[in-house]
């Protein structure tokens, strides 16, 4: 199994605040990698480094390297849109655009010129099928996406990435706005998707990490304390701090 993303000696500062300290990990292709740790430890920050969303924030400084398929994504700025197409992101709060269901899916293919007008219907259908939304929504394609349920919205946001043929899905606490039933359904969807996609999920729900992921990283105060196979992290943590966290002694 090859590495899709390799992070090496990654450091990030928000102004003077050192938010990521010497982080290194490698993300396996077509598998689910989860990042856990207490709130504020830098999970989102690390995730946002992988598609360069931190570039949007003023006064950020980044050192180290992030390689996607062997290419350093921080070398040169020209391929930023292509990078974000390849490495898509699902946010904590589902954020469909204030457009119809159809236009939400079509947005990505349009901005990347992926489809002719007559192919768009197929792309929309396939993308919705991939996230198991087609049957529910095939008669509501022209309705505003803002009217969907939270779970449907989150699926739609995943479908948007399917539509642009993203290879990596970054998910930042994708279930924290959802109820337990919806959470389980999204997890099931993730297990389906990992046959075709590389997934990195941030979660502060340890059971979720244990349920869905092959590999887990534990972060604390900007450092990646421990990284390894999920069963190992949860049953035989090497670091005292990891053990304290998963046994619930803090966080």
């Amino acid at each position, binding site marked *: 199994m090859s590495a899709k993303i390799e992070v090496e000696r990654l450091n990030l500062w928000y102004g003077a605040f050192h938010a990521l300290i010497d982080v290194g990990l490698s993300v396996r292709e077509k598998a689910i990698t989860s990042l856990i740790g207490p709130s504020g430890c830098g999970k989102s920050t690390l995730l946002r480094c992988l598609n360069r969303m931190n570039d949007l924030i003023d006064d950020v400084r980044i050192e180290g390297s992030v390689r996607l398929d062997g290419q350093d994504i921080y070398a040169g700025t020209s391929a930023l849109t292509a990078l974000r197409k390849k490495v898509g992101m699902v*946010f904590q709060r589902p954020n469909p655009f204030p457009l119809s269901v159809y236009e939400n899916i079509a*947005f990505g293919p349009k901005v990347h010129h992926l489809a002719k007008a007559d192919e768009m219907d197929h792309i929309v259908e396939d993308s919705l099928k991939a996230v198991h939304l087609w049957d529910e929504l095939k008669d509501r394609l022209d309705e505003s996406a803002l009217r969907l349920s939270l779970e449907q919205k989150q699926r739609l946001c995943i479908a948007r990435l399917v539509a642009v043929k993203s290879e990596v899905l970054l998910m930042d606490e994708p279930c924290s706005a959802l109820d337990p039933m919806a959470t389980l359904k999204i997890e099931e969807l993730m297990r389906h998707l990992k046959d075709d996609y590389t997934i990195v999920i941030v979660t502060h729900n340890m059971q979720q990490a244990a349920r869905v992921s092959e590999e887990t990283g534990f972060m604390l105060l900007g450092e990646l304390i421990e990284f390894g196979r999920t069963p190992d992290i949860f049953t035989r943590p090497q670091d005292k701090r990891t053990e304290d966290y998963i046994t619930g002694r803090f966080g």
Partner: protein
Amino acid sequence: MARFRKVKEFVIEKLIFASGIASIIFVALIFIFLLREGVSVFKTTSIGDFLGGRFWYPISDPPKLGILPLILGSLLVTAGAIVLAVPLGIGAAFYIADVAPVKIRHLLKSCVEVLAAIPSVVLGFLGITLLVPFLKHTLGLPTGLTALAGSIMLAFMALPTIISISEDAINAVPREYKEGALALGATHWQTLTRVIIHGAMPGIIAASMLGIGRVIGETMAVMMVTGNAAVIPTSLLQPVRTLTATIAAEMGEAAKGSPHYFALFAVGLVLFLISFLINLTADLFLNRGKKR
């Protein structure tokens, strides 16, 4: 102590209530007065002749009181102003809200505020001394006092409203939309034109309508630069006369109680109805934006 507070609250509440009622009463009184004076014109001129008449000769005998040229003059000047101010205002709002670096943003916002604070007479004065000769020379016209000059003046006056309210609407678009679009690999421009604009649209429409509502009743600057010829206009490059300019220019001369006098009130009534409709529509859009 508690009692005193209760009394104080009671008094304040009633005062606020009274001022609310007072403003409604004032509007109603103004409207009733306009209506009473205005409808008297229909004793001598039919509604059709008044609204559709092609000639405004108020002091000939008998007077011809057709306001069609004035309505068309107002519409033409306003339409010209809309065409100029709306795209410019929206563009400026997007630039200020989402593109400009912080320093330029603050500078531009102050400029917009200053523009809003210039009295219309002063703008009209600048119009006469700078804009009118400029139009005359660059376009080779017999006179620079044209509908176009009026449109440009009005556009300047509508811009601050359009810019600041549109900017608020753009800033109110949730940041998540922008992040979502950028995270999909959209460029900044695509994000702006395909996503943010949809979120801001009700507010932008309301801003445009309020900007227009602000200038349709505008008088001074327009009267100073449009030439005031009461003829049915066929182009932006000829002198026109607006409804407002007619009232301002002729109210002093019209003999009280004459058909001319009543006709001017009826013109006021027409203006009142037009601005009322525009404000109402703008409100509908603003509220629709809020509900979502």
